[in-house]
């Protein structure tokens, strides 16, 4: 054991990285021994990706505090090309392959085997073949990447890393999008590479995978190193890891609400959705859930677990294909096949990506507020300016949108106020059930509290609220009931009063 630490390939010491208003990393230490698989675990937003961006030079030297020592030498990377030259290669969750190019072209992209700008294709293909053999991928070098499944694409990424003489391989959630047997293959490959002396950092939420391959584990929480565990000296239990991951005090406060839960409003049964492009991939598997009047229901899960896909496929089939299942409102089946019909039948969906999907940024608060229900402020297709303005003012006051006037372009508002405008838009459609997707993402603490208050008021008015969030404390603080989602399925259900982070996390990691 001592021996391992003597031969550290990477030491990151006292790394601190701040963004305006947030300390993303606070005195983080990470030591990776030569030839080990080091797992990095933590909740969404714990700082794992930021740490890896510091390491790979995405955040250049000088934009953070602390030291990085790689192979015994202090390093100062100013970009990804610097870290790659030293043999540190990161494979992101979203693969960075060009779908229309061949495997060989992708592997040597930006690193072509060429003389005077002319590519040596025979040599390229021969080397690719060798690399593919190493990673155990039985495909021709000329096969186009978009003909491969996600698992095979992942292997191409690793082959690409090997072509660059990798010494430290960083994998960010490599198995998140993979089927079980593909995941196993990938983990086996990591063990093989380890035998050949390649060290890796594995970022993963799946604790069973971590316990299977990792030699040591570093747990991050809220931008700090919580613990570093050695898997060989002691038996590490999953409970121990989970406790380290989530064991913080409730930092936020949530407004009080006495739930008055009425009849069941929304009842979704056996909802199945397939990926819009990868036709063999089922994104939502038989999800069934219900929401009652006056109830706030949470959907917990990790990124990529299918929560947004579930919501958007329900809302006018805005995501996915081959959608099947039934949606009932107050016991009667309703048509949600287009956004217009879903809205007319009492659904509203507040998107997680308000800038790209929620707002017309070039237009003002008033026009954004009335966009989804122009019929209410118009007669025979002619907009009643006075009425429209009154509506906009009413919601501005009710939700406390801080703007000089309703004629302010929404692009000039802060994130919290933009979110209130999106909420205004959907409240003006007078829905029975609101699905809020990450309603407090990227907004400050004060505005969060205001949004929580609005949610409570809506529930108080007898609406059903579905709240999707990656912040577990938020769900625990707000929800009457919480569904736990993983890999497209609802894998558990907890009463708000009985739920805690450990229970949710263990439902996710053990499903």
């Amino acid at each position, binding site marked *: 054991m001592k021996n391992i630490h003597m031969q550290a390939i990477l030491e990151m010491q006292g790394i601190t990285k701040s963004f305006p208003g947030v300390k993303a990393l606070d005195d983080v230490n990470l030591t990776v021994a030569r030839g080990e698989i080091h797992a990095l675990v933590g909740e969404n937003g714990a700082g794992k990706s930021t740490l890896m961006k510091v390491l790979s030079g995405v955040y250049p030297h000088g934009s953070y505090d602390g030291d990085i020592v790689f192979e015994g030498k202090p390093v100062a990377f100013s970009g990804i090309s610097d870290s790659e030259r030293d043999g540190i290669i990161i494979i992101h969750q979203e693969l960075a392959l060009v779908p229309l190019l061949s495997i060989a072209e992708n592997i040597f992209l930006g690193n072509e085997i060429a003389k005077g700008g002319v590519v040596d294709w025979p040599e390229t293909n021969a080397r690719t073949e060798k690399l593919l053999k190493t990673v155990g991928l039985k495909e021709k070098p000329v096969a186009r990447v978009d003909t491969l499944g996600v698992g095979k694409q992942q292997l191409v990424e690793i082959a690409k890393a090997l072509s660059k003489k990798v010494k430290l391989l960083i994998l960010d959630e490599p198995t998140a999008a993979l089927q079980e047997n593909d995941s196993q293959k990938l983990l086996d490959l990591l063990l093989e590479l380890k035998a050949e002396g390649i060290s890796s950092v594995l970022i993963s939420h799946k604790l069973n995978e971590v316990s299977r391959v990792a030699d040591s584990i570093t747990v991050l929480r809220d931008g700090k190193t919580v613990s570093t565990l050695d898997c060989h000296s002691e038996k590490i239990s999953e409970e121990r890891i989970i406790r380290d991951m989530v064991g913080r005090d409730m930092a936020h406060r949530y407004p009080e609400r006495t739930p008055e839960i009425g009849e069941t409003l929304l009842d979704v049964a056996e909802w199945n959705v397939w990926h819009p492009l990868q036709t063999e991939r089922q994104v939502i598997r038989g999800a069934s859930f219900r929401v009652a009047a006056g109830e706030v229901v949470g959907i917990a899960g990790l990124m990529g677990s299918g929560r947004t896909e579930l919501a958007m496929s329900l809302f006018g089939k805005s995501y996915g294909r081959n959608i099947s299942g039934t949606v009932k409102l107050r016991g009667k089946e309703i048509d949600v096949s287009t956004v217009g019909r879903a809205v007319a039948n009492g659904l509203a969906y507040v998107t997680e990506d308000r800038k790209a999907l929620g*707002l017309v940024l*070039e237009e003002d608060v008033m026009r954004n507020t009335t966009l989804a229900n122009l019929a209410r402020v118009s007669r025979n*297709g002619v907009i009643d300016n006075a009425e429209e303005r009154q509506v906009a003012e009413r919601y501005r006051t009710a939700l406390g949108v801080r703007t000089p006037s309703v004629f302010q372009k929404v692009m000039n508002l802060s994130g919290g106020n933009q979110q209130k405008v999106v909420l205004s838009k959907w409240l003006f459609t007078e829905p029975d059930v609101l699905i809020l997707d990450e309603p407090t993402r990227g907004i400050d603490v004060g505005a969060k509290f205001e949004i929580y208050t609005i949610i409570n008021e809506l529930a108080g008015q007898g609406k059903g609220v579905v709240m999707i969030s990656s912040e577990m404390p938020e769900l625990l603080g707000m929800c009457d009931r919480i569904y736990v989602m993983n890999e497209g399925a609802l894998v558990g259900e907890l009463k708000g009063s009985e739920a805690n982070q450990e229970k949710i996390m263990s439902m996710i990691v053990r499903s």
Partner: protein
Amino acid sequence: MTEVSARERETAAEGAVVSIGSHLKNHLRDYGMLLALVVIMAFFQVVTDGTLMRPVNLTNLILQNSYIVIMALGMLLVIVAGHIDLSVGSVVGFVGAVAAVMLVQYELPTPVVIPACLILGILIGAAQGYWIAYWRIPSFIVTLAGMLVFRGLTLWVLQGQSVGPFPRGFQLLSTGFIPDAFGIGRPNATAILLGAATAAILVYMAMRDRRRHMKYGIEDEPFSFFLAKNGLIAAAIVFLSYMLATYRGLPNVLITMAVLTAAYTFLTNSTTVGRRIYALGGNEKAAKLSGIPTERLTFLTFANMGMLAALAGLIFAARLNTATPKAGVAFELDVIAAVFIGGASMSGGVGKIVGAVVGAFIMGVMNNGMSILGIGIDYQQVIKGLVLLAAVIFDVYNKNKST
């Protein structure tokens, strides 16, 4: 007490003084192009020794630009929706050719030919809009194809020949004038009365709007500025109608143009359809997730463009009194340039009808003025190109400064 209120008055007065300047600055994009038009007209008025503003030339200016203005109305909607239509010049030629064949070879009556040709235009626009809206084929490609197809069909319909002349009734579409109802002769009293009435209506509507806005406390335009602006616009309209009255009166196309401009201004400002087109161009995904039928709107926008291109084709043919295979060549570029000069954004969601009309007249006055001066077509092209570039740079510069 008195001291305080005196200071308040002072700051209020100061605020008003500052606000004329800052108001102008804030609305530079709105008034900039109108100002540019005035400056360009004044410039050519001087260098052509007053030829530009002669009644006969003003009448010509309107007749020459009517079809560009009419198409700019439709093109504005297309561009605001985030698309482009390159086929309009060919559609002008094709519809003119079809009209000519119907009128001259088949001797169909004008009241049949005009609606038939407008419907043909709608069908052409719809055929292109179908692929753009429902198949998501880029409008640039679909309408580029349309540009080739309809130019070819024009040649085919006309068999490579010019077809004309047309019956008198059809020619009136472009070369007719509103008759003098009072029989006074020149100056034409009808024209002056219509001009004065239009000016009065515009001023009345502006005042009504301002009153209503004041009630909500949202008026940011200083009153002196409001007065000057509307006074100038009213004076310009009365002056123009007087000038036209001393020649042959108001051309029929001017009325067509004015009515259409008013209708499309209303459509874009006050109707749900107009509002939705802006939202679609501003953020298609957000519009779709707000329940707006984005495909159908795109489709209708192109069908509308087809209809206006057909109308322009009829007017153009009537003006030349013959349909030629070359009719409408490169019109699409003038139309698109007019819309961008008028402040529309290539990425969609931004643009005004008034801007597009002003843009069309900037192009028109420059064409006309340079022709009077005898400047060669070579220089004319260069200058027009540079003006387009300058207008868009001005826009982008303003936008960057404001954010």
